[in-house]
């Protein structure tokens, strides 16, 4: 076996969350990508068939992150891809899958599942501190209560609930804000930081807009809002990040607002927004931008398809994925917030995306 199969000397979980920059970040990421690519080629025959058919020769040819072969993210909707024995799978995650689409299936073994949680914990600690906080969920209890309609929202709320305690749902089951319950919760935890979690479009419509319409406010000045998931079917109501933050501050007094970008196919290594308003890659992930037509890498400042790298996926070949989201790299190691690494912007989704190539090749 090539040397790149070996586990790295230092566990990746010891890496500084937002402290790696320049060549140091690139070299560590490159080593992990070589190792993971070799592992998945050896352990997942369909993965090997795809990347080899695309002309990939071997891991030693990976001289730069741009050389790491990638799968289109939607391949996980069509194929059962796993790189560990079936018996090692402890958990299967599924994506939301908008109407008419099939769902991704992501198979986790113990190690991958544990790494997801460790990495997510590290990233969350950067914005909320190391302690679990009283948690206000901007959603309704029914979203998690109905186990037979387990959705991305359910998974998101439950995943982030690990960082909260004494969880309170701000919305009733008909999705209307319950100000009495919410105020009682805030009174109970007065003087403490509060973790507030919700999906972007739900926070906007069912918290901000609802409070505006009722001419009411909530005292959430100690709140730390973590929101993600984009605007989904509410694209027409979408507002810019600045307007979003202003809207939140006006009706809740909350100024610590962090958007995150991530996908179920790379759970854990999410991209978190800093106080300066920029999404950041952590030590465990990287972003490349590719031309939507010919997939050539694009430089910072140019808009294209988001190619995500993550050191987490071991049990399934998801360490290098081409998404159907568009955005751009804004800079590296240059954020006013002081974080090292890549900062990026997501501009939305490629409509009616049809990423061809790999999956077609495999079907042939």
């Amino acid at each position: 076996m090539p040397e790149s199969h070996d586990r790295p000397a230092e566990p990746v979980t010891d890496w500084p969350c937002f402290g790696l920059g320049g060549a140091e970040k690139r070299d560590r990421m490159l080593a992990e990508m070589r190792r993971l690519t070799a592992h998945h080629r050896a352990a997942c025959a369909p993965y090997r068939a795809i990347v080899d058919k695309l002309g990939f020769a071997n891991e030693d040819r990976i001289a730069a992150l741009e050389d790491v072969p990638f799968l289109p993210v939607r391949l996980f909707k069509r194929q059962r891809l796993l790189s560990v024995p079936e018996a090692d799978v402890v958990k299967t995650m599924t994506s939301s899958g908008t109407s008419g689409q099939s769902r991704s299936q992501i198979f986790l073994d113990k190690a991958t599942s544990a790494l997801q949680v460790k990495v997510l914990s590290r990233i969350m600690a950067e914005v909320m501190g190391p302690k679990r906080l009283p948690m206000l969920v901007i959603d309704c209890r029914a979203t998690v209560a109905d186990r037979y309609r387990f959705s991305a929202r359910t998974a998101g709320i439950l995943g982030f609930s690990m960082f909260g305690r004494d969880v309170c749902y701000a919305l009733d089951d008909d999705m209307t804000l319950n100000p009495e319950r919410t105020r009682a919760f805030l009174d109970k935890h007065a003087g403490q930081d509060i973790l507030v979690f919700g999906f972007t479009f739900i926070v906007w419509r069912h918290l901000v807009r609802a409070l505006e319409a009722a001419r009411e406010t909530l005292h959430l000045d100690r709140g730390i809002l973590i929101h993600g998931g984009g605007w989904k079917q509410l694209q027409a109501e979408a507002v810019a990040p600045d307007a979003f933050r202003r809207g939140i501050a006006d009706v809740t007094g909350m100024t610590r607002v962090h958007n995150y970008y991530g996908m179920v196919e790379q759970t854990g290594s999410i991209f978190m927004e800093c106080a300066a308003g920029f999404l950041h890659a952590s030590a465990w992930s990287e972003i490349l931008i590719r031309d939507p037509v010919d997939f050539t890498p694009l430089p910072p400042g140019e808009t294209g398809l988001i190619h995500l790298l993550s050191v987490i996926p071991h049990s399934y070949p998801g360490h290098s994925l081409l998404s159907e989201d568009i955005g751009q790299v804004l800079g590296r190691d240059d954020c006013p917030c002081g974080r090292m690494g890549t900062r990026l912007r997501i501009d939305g989704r490629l409509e009616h995306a049809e990423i061809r190539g790999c999956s077609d090749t495999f079907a042939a």
Partner: protein
Amino acid sequence: MSNKEKYDQVFIENFSVSADQLNADFVYQCVPQWDSVGHMAMIAALEDTFDIMMETEDIIEFSSYTVGMEKLKKYGVEI
């Protein structure tokens, strides 16, 4: 009630099981109720019962009835 009885009671109520099912084989996802939803509810119930606050890592590693007893030791709760 002893700590053991309190501990068992949380499992019995959360997962709708009987006391004789609670042994080393009672692990995460061994009954439909012990899924990720049930897990967080159980943690909340244990925290209330013993007036403790567990760290995220311990919540995740709380993978069985038996492992749970070890985890609670860390918070001064002897089962």
